[in-house]
């Protein structure tokens, strides 16, 4: 093994002064939590690193930990790019993230209950009515319905970034079918295999307890009168981009992975078709979007769902996690009101900050947005996966005009935020065979059950692999890093 000094492995590492680097402070010194790992990595040559990196890659590929990219013609099987240099979060910082994520998701749950019942928050003029009435994600079918244990957003993914001011901000809430948790576990496994030695120097929290916490959550929200509930995961099928995750979760929880065609509803009870005949199903962790879960109630063309499922849900004979209709609360238009929502229901100050958002539906905001596009990120309100995002300072003059026209045509559909400077993390770049600064965010996973809350200690650090790029989604060429939350000394 070639001995290369600490300096040489990072010797080409260029620090852009304007960016917040997770590893080095403004004077170029290594932050204390990273000191040890930098020493260890520094003892290896880039050549060793390349070898380890390739091994990790083929390990992902052989295990079939891949996702499909929907391209021009046929979908392709790709591995989720993975970086062997982990992100480390110290216990105090994590404490803030964890408390903030729980607070935020509890408040959103209260909000969901309210908007599907008395709508007090609207009557009190905290959130404007038209945000609900114009939201395609508001399901009138959920009005007055009481989900078991009063929980709507059982599983939430909260996307958090660190801005150049060193503070964490929430960028987005995902409370429909957030994905990515399986990669957290795979990343950890890959890193342990490749560089187990480094774990001797850090007391890191495990991430493998996610599945047991999820199962315990699903069992806690069982329908009334059921003793030992039968839980299943429902997937759109093996051609879905997150199929690996669905199968991983089912396997890790030891429960069945079903497709819509495996279930049927009789007398408002749900059954799955097994080799020993029908078996009653009590809790469904659904990874199918609202509109596809039941062709009788929602999209009649859906072949993914189960006819009659919603009726069984309405009767209280089956639990759906997450509840239908949660999309109304993770909509980018509602996002702006989350600090108010937290204050309204919990009477607490938000622990995690929100990025200021301009609503193109408001005339004043619209004017500001149209005048300042070059300084803003424009996002469609209801698109997931980083599609349809325009970043103002990257646009040509013609493109700006184009975006302006698109916004003017449907102002309700767009919001804008100041261009946040995501923090950067040293990331190994294959093309240049060296470490470079790349923007990162963090998706945390929160699980809410009956009297239980759990935040996975780690989460998915997503990396925008293209130089200067701020969009970290895997469908847009993003990668990920293992994320270590250190134990309190």
């Amino acid at each position, binding site marked *: 093994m070639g001995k290369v000094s600490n300096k040489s492995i990072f010797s080409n590492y260029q620090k852009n002064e304007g960016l917040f680097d997770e590893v080095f402070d403004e004077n170029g010194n290594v932050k204390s939590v990273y000191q040890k790992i930098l020493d260890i990595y520094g003892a290896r040559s880039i050549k060793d690193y390349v070898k380890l990196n390739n091994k990790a890659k083929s390990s992902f*590929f*052989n*295990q*079939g930990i891949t996702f499909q990219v929907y391209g021009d013609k046929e979908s392709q099987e790709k591995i989720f790019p993975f970086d062997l240099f982990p992100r480390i979060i110290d216990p105090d910082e994590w404490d803030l993230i964890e408390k903030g994520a729980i607070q935020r998701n509890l408040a959103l749950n209260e909000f969901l209950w309210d908007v599907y019942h008395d709508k007090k928050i609207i009557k009190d003029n905290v959130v404007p009515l038209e945000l609900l009435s114009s939201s395609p994600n508001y399901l009138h079918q959920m009005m007055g319905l009481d989900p078991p244990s009063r929980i709507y957003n059982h599983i939430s993914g909260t996307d958090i970034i660190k801005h150049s001011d060193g503070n964490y901000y929430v960028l987005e809430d995902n409370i429909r079918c957030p994905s990515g948790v399986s990669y957290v576990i795979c990343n950890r496994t890959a890193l342990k295999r490749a560089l187990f030695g480094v774990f001797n120097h850090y007391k890191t929290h495990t991430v493998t307890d996610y599945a047991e916490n999820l199962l315990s959550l699903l069992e806690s929200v069982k329908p009334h009168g059921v003793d030992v509930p039968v839980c299943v*995961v429902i997937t759109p*099928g*093996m051609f879905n981009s997150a*199929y*690996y995750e*669905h*199968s*991983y979760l*089912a*396997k890790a929880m030891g429960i*069945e*992975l*079903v*497709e819509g*065609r*495996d279930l049927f509803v009789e007398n408002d009870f749900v059954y*799955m*078709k*097994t*080799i*020993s005949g029908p078996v009653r199903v009590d809790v469904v962790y659904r990874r199918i979007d609202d509109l596809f879960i039941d062709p009788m109630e929602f999209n009649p063309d859906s072949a993914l769902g189960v006819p009659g499922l919603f009726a069984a849900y309405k009767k209280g004979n089956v639990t759906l996690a997450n509840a239908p209709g949660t999309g109304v609360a993770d909509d980018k238009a509602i996002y702006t009101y989350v600090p108010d929502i937290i204050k309204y229901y919990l009477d607490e100050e938000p622990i995690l900050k929100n990025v200021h958002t301009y609503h193109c539906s408001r005339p004043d905001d619209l004017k500001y947005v149209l005048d300042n596009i070059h300084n803003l990120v424009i996002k469609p309100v209801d698109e997931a996966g980083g599609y349809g995002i325009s970043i103002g300072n990257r646009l040509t003059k013609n493109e700006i005009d184009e975006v302006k026209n698109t916004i003017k045509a449907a102002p309700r559909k767009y919001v804008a935020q100041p261009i946040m400077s995501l923090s950067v993390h040293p990331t190994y770049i294959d093309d240049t065979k060296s470490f470079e600064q790349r923007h990162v965010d963090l998706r945390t996973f929160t699980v809410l059950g009956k009297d239980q809350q759990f935040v996975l200690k780690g989460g998915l650090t997503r990396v925008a692999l293209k130089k200067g790029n701020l969009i970290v989604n895997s469908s847009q060429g993003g990668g990920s890093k293992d994320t270590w939350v250190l134990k309190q000394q």
Partner: protein
Amino acid sequence: MLSRVANNLFWMGRYIERAEHVARFMNVNYFSSLDAPNQLSQSRQFVLQSMLFMVGNSINDASVDLDEEQVLYDIALNPEESYSIINSIKNARENANSSRDLISTELYESLNKFYHFVMKYPKEAFVKTNLYDFTINVSEMTAVLRGKIRGTLLHDKVYAVIMMGVNIERAIQINRIINTKFNDAQKAQGGYGDTMANSFEWSTLLKCAESYDMMRRLYKKAPTSTTTLEFLLLNSRCPRSFMNCINQVYNHVKELENKAEHEKHSTAFLVGKVRAEFEFKRIEEITEDVQGCLNGILDKMFKISESMEKEFFGY
């Protein structure tokens, strides 16, 4: 276990087994023909015909001149041919994909590696120089898969369904191989005595079923038509024999049944009946009409497979 998933696992087992038999058949036939004792067995056309017959795409016209590279490519790597090895592996993996939550990580990883090996295998090299390398790798990788099935899965209904697929397919493939070589032996007869009984093709047949060494230990003589057929059809100790396959199927189908006694129309009853018939069969009854017996076995296996579909996978 979900019916759909059971169906997929059953077919995963069948496709893995199918790939192995086709690969071994290609390997053994091609290489044993190179120095075969008589002209016909040594002829390349004869061997290619034999391979196509085995995969169920027989050419009945002897005057057709087969292109060696094309035939080898079709049987091994042509994704357009339903009988090709590459298709079997694709199907096996696709079936495994849809039941990934039930099979072990280890089994899936081996199957996935196998899939990528076959998908990436260079076509040119295969048809020109790498027939041995490719087929031997397929045989080895299927052996690994069998090991992972046995060693990394809970021996419950999931295991039983896969093993039923494996054993039903094995019975069918062994039957096809016997049928092919029986056909060949009639054409390429031996040089003395009962020329058909002494054909060189019987040794090839045993090698195709990986049973040559076992057979030599048991009979200590050069194989003849009678001893070979007896060994491959009726000897329950030979892991490749039909008798052993049907015994295995019977053991596993009992695991799937919920009742203590078989119902008259159940798959277990049907399997038990076939098993009983062969347990008390003598080889003389078979040699009277080999072709008829082979056809009968094939028919019975198809009926068992159909009955499984009705009883366990029907939804």
